[in-house]
């Protein structure tokens, strides 16, 4: 197995909450950066599929979708790390970041895996394409979220669970909170107008009507 395949396999294990016990600090950092860079590639693949009906949109999505993912994650990090420091967790900050990047990796991988289906439906169906485009994005976010939070419950005591779940919840909530704004900034991502194109303003106004 070559190095890249080995790293991807390790990242998949980490996203399932199986962090190797003998991981040294340098390997953790390497896995975090590897997860981040792979996530950007996977997000670009999904972006290409989502914009497949318009070449310019697809080309733009190659950068826009990874940008949305990267900035949403980066924006959540300070709050997550602070919550981690304030909680009484025995988990190291690097481990938290590793499990966060591992779940983002799994979520974007899920989007990349669904990308061919998204592209096929976008190219062949007026009706199903948009649903599948949005749906695959929601599924990916849900996969990342579930895996990330699930990691807090794996092989730890009840007290430790409580202190691990708080920073994870903060990270997940802040990431989901800022994501619509970055989507609005990068819009259009999908060929049709969606509720996320104008960010939280439209979501709020939909609620106000």
């Amino acid at each position, binding site marked *: 197995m070559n190095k890249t395949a080995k790293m991807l396999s390790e990242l998949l294990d980490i996203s399932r909450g199986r962090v190797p016990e003998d991981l040294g600090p340098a*390997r953790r*950092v390497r896995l975090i*950066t*590897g997860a981040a860079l792979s996530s950007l590639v996977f997000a670009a693949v999904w972006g290409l599929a989502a914009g497949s009906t318009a070449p310019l949109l697809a080309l733009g999505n190659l*950068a826009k979708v990874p*940008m949305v993912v990267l900035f949403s994650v980066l924006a959540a990090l300070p709050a997550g790390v602070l919550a981690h420091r304030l909680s009484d967790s025995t988990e190291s900050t690097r481990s938290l970041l590793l499990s966060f990047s591992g779940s983002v990796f799994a979520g974007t991988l899920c989007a990349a895996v669904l990308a061919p289906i998204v592209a096929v439906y976008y190219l062949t169906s007026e009706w199903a394409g948009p649903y599948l485009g949005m749906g695959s994005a929601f599924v990916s976010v849900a996969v990342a979220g579930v895996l990330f939070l699930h990691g807090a419950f794996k092989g730890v005591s009840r007290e430790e669970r409580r202190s691990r779940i708080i920073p994870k919840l903060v990270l997940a909530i802040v990431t989901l909170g800022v994501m619509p704004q970055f989507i*609005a900034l*990068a819009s259009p991502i999908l060929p049709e107008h969606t509720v996320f194109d104008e960010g939280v*303003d439209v979501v709020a106004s939909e*609620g106000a009507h």
Partner: protein
Amino acid sequence: MLAATLVLALAGPIPDSAHYVHLEPEHVVIDSEWSASTQEPLATPLPDDATMEVLGEHTLRVTMPRDEAERDDVLPLPLPPGDGVHRVTFDHRISFRPDPSLELAPRGTRAVGRNVHRADIRRVDMAFGRPRKDTTAHYVHSEGLRGTGGFAGSLKDAKTRRQRLMLFASALFIFVVAGLMAIARAVRRRAEAEHADEILAREIDSLATR
């Protein structure tokens, strides 16, 4: 109190107004409602390229070219004559930045100008209905608008402002990705050495236990 009410009743309603500014593909449209009759003359003249339609006894609409509205530093509001308080709200597709000279102070989802008091806000909201909660409602006294002939500030399509931000975000993105790649490269050798050490330590342990 009774005397004050009587004076107010004799003088007619305070000339307040509410304006909702929204975008059409080529135009900026201002839907206005006055507490006074729209038969009254405007307090300030509108620009030549703006058209005004009287829609009812208290409602009127001003339409002006979008590029003109974006270029000018003043949004020409159709104001009733006299001293009153004027509420201005914008569609979420508009990004409006009021001129700092108006000294609008934020109060929750409201931005309130000089000489506008709580009672004024209540009166305006009672007369025209509460503003939508998803948009900032600006309350300005006539004296703050009369000098400039309208609501001073910069109006832009929110998308245009976002596009500028996107350029900055793109540069930042490239910078961050380059940083991540540099870290990955820098840490690769150390990680490999660490991994080799771990394997070696395991081998030595297993030999020792034999």
